[in-house]
C-alpha cells in the first residue's frame, strides 16, 4: 500500500540547526505553492491504494486548514485513500490555536506530530526555536481538547550544553504529557550550520559520545517503563500507534512524495523533485523538469537498501520475507561479516530474523555498512 508525502517548505523562522528543504514563510508564494501541489497530485492520479498521508516540512502547520483540506481532497480524488488512513500533520507548537487545530481535524488530519525538541527553555533558545516548553505543553493540551487521539512528540538529544540529567528532564516532561508516540533523535550539527557559529560564540559544547549513548539508552528505558514500545531505532509508540507512514520507509515500502524536494520510491525506482520552490511551481505548470534525480535500483541495491533500512526496525529484518522477495539467503551471504556483531551482542540472529539489540541500535551504521557492497555513482 502506498504512502503519500506532501512537502511544505515554509517556516516562520529558520532554525539554526536545520538543513531540510525549507524557506521563510511568504503568504503569496504559499498560495502559488498549494496550487502547484494540487496540480502535481492530480497529474499523478492513478487510483493506487494508499493508506497514509503525511504533511512534512518545513512547517506544514503554517498552512491554513482549508488548504490542507484541498490537498487531502486532491489526494482522495487521485488515489484510492483508505477510509481509516493515517493522516499526519507536522506542527510547530507556536503555530497552533484551538481554532486552527479544530480546522485541521475537520479537514481530515487525524495525527499530529509536534516538533517539541526539548522541554527546557534554554535549550530551545539555543536552537533558535520560537516556542517555550510551556507553549509546547499547551499546544499538546489543545490538540487533545480538539479530539486528537494520536499525537507524536519529537525530542532531540545531544543538544548544545545538554547534560544527561537535563535530557532526562525533557523525557520526563514528555512522559508526563502522555503522547501516543515519540521520536528521539540526536542533533547532528551539519557543516556550516549557523548553530556551529552560535556554539563558537557562546563557547557551547556537546556531550561526549559516551554520555550521548547514555542519553539514548536512558531515554528509551524511561519510555519502556512508561509503557511505550520501541519499534524503530528512534521511535516509540503506545501499542498500535506506530507511525504507519514512517514504517514504509523502513519496511521496504512504497511512497509517493509531492512538493519541492520530495522523495518518492515506487516500482524499484527512487526519485526526487526539484528542490527549489520556484522551480517546482514552474515545473508543475509545465515549465522545466519536475524530477531532479532519478535512480532506478539494481536488484543488488534494492536488496542492500531493504536490509539496511529494515535493520532500523525493532522487529529487524524478516529473513523469510527477504528470501521470498529477493531470493537471497541473507545469513549465507552476510553471516560471516555479521558474526562479530552477534558475538558483541549488538545483533541478534535467531534463524528467522536479524535484529539489533539496543546497544546495537546505537551502532547501527557499523552493521548497515556490511550490507553495502555496491557504490552508487
Amino acid at each position, binding site marked *: 500500500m502506498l504512502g503519500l*508525502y506532501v*512537502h511544505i517548505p515554509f517556516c516562520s523562522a529558520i532554525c539554526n540547526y536545520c538543513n*531540510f*528543504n525549507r524557506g521563510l514563510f511568504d503568504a503569496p508564494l504559499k498560495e502559488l505553492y498549494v496550487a502547484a501541489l494540487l496540480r502535481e497530485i492530480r497529474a499523478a492520479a492513478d487510483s493506487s491504494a494508499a493508506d497514509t498521508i503525511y504533511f*512534512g516540512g518545513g512547517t506544514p502547520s503554517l498552512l491554513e486548514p482549508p488548504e490542507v483540506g484541498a490537498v487531502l481532497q486532491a489526494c482522495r480524488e487521485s488515489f484510492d485513500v483508505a477510509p481509516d488512513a493515517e493522516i499526519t500533520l507536522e506542527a510547530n507548537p507556536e503555530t497552533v490555536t484551538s481554532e486552527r487545530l479544530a480546522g485541521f481535524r475537520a479537514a481530515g488530519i487525524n495525527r499530529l506530530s509536534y516538533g517539541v525538541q526539548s522541554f527546557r527553555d534554554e535549550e530551545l533558545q539555543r536552537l533558535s526555536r520560537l516556542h517555550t516548553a510551556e507553549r509546547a505543553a499547551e499546544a499538546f493540551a489543545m490538540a487533545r481538547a480538539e479530539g486528537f487521539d494520536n499525537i507524536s512528540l519529537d525530542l532531540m538529544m545531544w543538544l548544545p550544553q545538554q547534560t544527561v540529567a537535563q535530557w532526562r528532564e525533557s523525557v520526563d516532561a514528555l512522559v508526563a504529557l502522555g503522547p501516543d508516540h515519540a*521520536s528521539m*533523535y*540526536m*542533533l*547532528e550539527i551539519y557543516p556550516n550550520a549557523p548553530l556551529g557559529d552560535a556554539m563558537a560564540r557562546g563557547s557551547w559544547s556537546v556531550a561526549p*559520545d*559516551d554520555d*550521548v*549513548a547514555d542519553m*539514548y539508552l536512558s531515554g528509551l528505558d524511561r519510555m519502556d517503563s512508561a509503557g511505550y514500545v520501541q519499534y524503530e*531505532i*528512534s521511535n516509540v509508540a503506545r501499542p498500535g500507534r506506530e507511525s504507519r507512514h514512517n514504517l*514504509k*520507509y523502513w519496511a521496504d515500502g512504497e*511512497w509517493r*512524495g509531492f512538493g519541492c*524536494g*520530495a*522523495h*518518492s*520510491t515506487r516500482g524499484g525506482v*527512487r526519485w*526526487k523533485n526539484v528542490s527549489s520552490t520556484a522551480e517546482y511551481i514552474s515545473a508543475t505548470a509545465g515549465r522545466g523538469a519536475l524530477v531532479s*534525480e532519478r*535512480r532506478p535500483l539494481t536488484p543488488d*541495491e534494492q536488496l*542492500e*537498501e531493504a536490509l*539496511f*533500512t529494515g535493520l532500523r526496525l525493532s522487529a529487524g529484518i524478516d529473513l523469510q520475507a527477504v528470501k521470498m522477495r529477493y531470493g537471497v539467503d541473507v545469513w549465507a551471504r552476510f553471516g560471516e561479516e555479521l558474526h*562479530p*556483531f552477534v558475538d*558483541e551482542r*549488538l545483533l541478534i540472529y535467531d534463524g528467522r530474523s536479524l535484529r539489533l539489540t539496543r*546497544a546495537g*541500535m*546505537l*551502532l*547501527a*551504521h*557499523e552493521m*548497515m*555498512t556490511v550490507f*553495502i557492497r555496491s*557504490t*552508487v555513482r
Partner: protein
Amino acid sequence: MDQAYIRNFSIIAHIDHGKSTLADRFLEHTGALQAREMEAQVLDAMDLERERGITIKAHPVRLNYTADDGNKYVLNLIDTPGHVDFGYEVTRSLAACEGALLLVDAAQGVEAQTLANAYLAVDNHLEIIPVINKIDLPSAQPDECKRQLEEIIGLDSADAILASAKEGTGVHEILEAIVARFHPPTGDPNAPLKALIFDSWYDPYRGVVVVVRVIDGVLRTKAKIRLMATAQDFEVDGLGVFSPKATPVDELGVGEVGFVVANIKVVADAKIGDTVTEVARPTTEPFPGFKELKPMVFAGLYPVESHQYSELREALEKLRLNDASFFYEPETSAALGFGFRCGFLGLLHMEIVQERLEREYGMDLVTTAPGVLYRVTTTDGEVHEVDSPAKLPDAGRIAKLEEPVITAMILTPTEYVGPILQLCQDKRGVQKKLEYLKSDRVLITYELPFNEVVLDFYDRLKTMSRGYASLDYHVTGYWESPLVKMDILVNGEPVDALSIIVHRDAAYERGRALASKMRELIPRQMFEIAIQASIGNRVIARESVKALRKNVLAKCYGGDITRKRKLLEKQKEGKKRMKRVGRVEIPQEAFLAVLKVGTE
C-alpha cells in the same frame, strides 16, 4: 677533440642556493638553448625534483663556449645530487671533474651540506671557485659569506665571484674563470680505455643509458667494452653528448663526457663508479673508488588492498630498472599480508620511491616505520645483517648486537647550540668536535646511531633551530648497543608491522609514547581495544581504546533513503582505507606512528 680545451666541472650548492638557475644561465649564455625555448630549470628533469626543488639526477650538459681569448672550449657541467642520501653519487660525479663551483647563497651563507660537499671536492683534488649567489637580495651579505668561506672551508675568498644567477650578473665572469682556473683533463689518449661511469638510467627505447667520463684512451662506437665490476661485455651501439639535447658522436676522447648505449638491460649492470674498458685491450687498473651501493634504510611497503600485490610488484620492478640503489624483496606480515621489504639509500630516497609508486603507479600503500641495517652476532658465532625487527633472532640467541653509526656535521648559529647538543645527547650521540667560528656559527660534529636519525632527528633539529641549523652525515661504522625489540600488541596479538628495535634505556619511554600515540590514531570500534608495548614477555606500557558506543542517529528526511545510503557508502569507504588486524581496524598512519612520537 683537443683535451686542452675541455673543462669538466660541477656546481656544489645547498638546496635552494640557486644551482639550477645558474645552470640555466650557462645554457643561455653559451647559446645551448634560447631563453624562450627554455622551460624554467631545464636540468631538473624529473617532475618530482622540480616540485621539491631538489636535484636527484640531472644530465651532464655540454656547453660550447667561445672564451674572451678567442678559443672555443667545451665545458661539461656535471650535476651532483643535492641530498645526503646520495653522497656516493656525489663523490663519483666529483671524480669526473677537475673543478667545482661552490655556490653559496649570499643571504643564507655556508650550510652543512655545502661544507660536506666542498670537503669532498677538496678530497678529490678539485680546483674550487667560490661563487656568492643572490647578491641582488636586500638581505645579501657577501662579506659575511666570504668570511665563512675562509674560516669554515679555508678557501681564499679574494677569488670569490659575486653573482646573481636570477639576474644574470657574474655569469660571464664565472664562465671565464672556469676556462682560466680549472685545469684541462690530464689523461693519455693512447693508453687502454678507461672511463668512469657516474650515472646511468633506463630508457624504454634504448635500454640503459650510461654516462661516462673518459679518463684514458678513446671510446668508439662498435667497440667491445667491458664493465669491470660486473665483468660483463657489451658492444657500443651508440655514443653521444647532451648539448643539452642528446646528440650522437662517433667517439669520446680523453676528458670527454658523454653517454653510451650498449644494449645493457638493467641499470644494475652499469653501476655508478664502475670503469668501462675495452675487451681487446683492457686497462690494468679500474678507476679507484668504486663501491657497491648499499641500502641504508629499510621499510615494509604493503598494498592497502591485498589484491594490488602483483601490481605493486610490477611497479617495483619498473622502478628498480631505473634505480639500482633501491632494493626490494617479498615479505609477509601477519598484520599487513603480502608486501615487500624495501631498502633505500636514506629517508629522502624512501619518500621519493613511495611518492612515485603512489603518483605514477597509482598504488595505495601502507608503509611501516623505517629502520636501519643491524648487525647481529648469534651465539653460534655467525654474523647476520638484519633489516627488519621481525628478522631479529630471539634475545637468547644474540651474542652481540651492533647498529650503524653516522658522523654528523651540524652547522648552526650559536644561539641554538644548547638545545642541539641536548638533542644529540638524547639521541645517544657522542660529541666529536665543537668549533665556535668567528661568524657566530658553530660546527658540531657528533657520532650518532643512524636509527635515531632515521626516526625524527632531522625534523627536530630543524624545528629547534627554526630551520637555521643544517645537517650532513655519512655512515661511518657500527657500534655495539644494548638494543631490544619492542612489540606492540593490539588486543593481545603482536602486530609484527609495528615492532621496532630500540635502545634498552629508551624503551620504556618510547613504548609509552608509542602506545599512547596508537590510542589516538586507532578509532573507537565496537569493542574495547587493548594496546600494549612489550619487550619479550614484559609489558612496559598499556593503553586502551574504549569501545565505540554510538553512531549519530539523525532524522531521515521524508524518505530520503539515497542520502542514508551515501552516508553508509562513505563510512564503508573510510573502513577500506584501514588495515584489519585480527578484528581491529588500524588506520594507515598508525603504522608510521613511531615516527610521530614525541615530535609534536
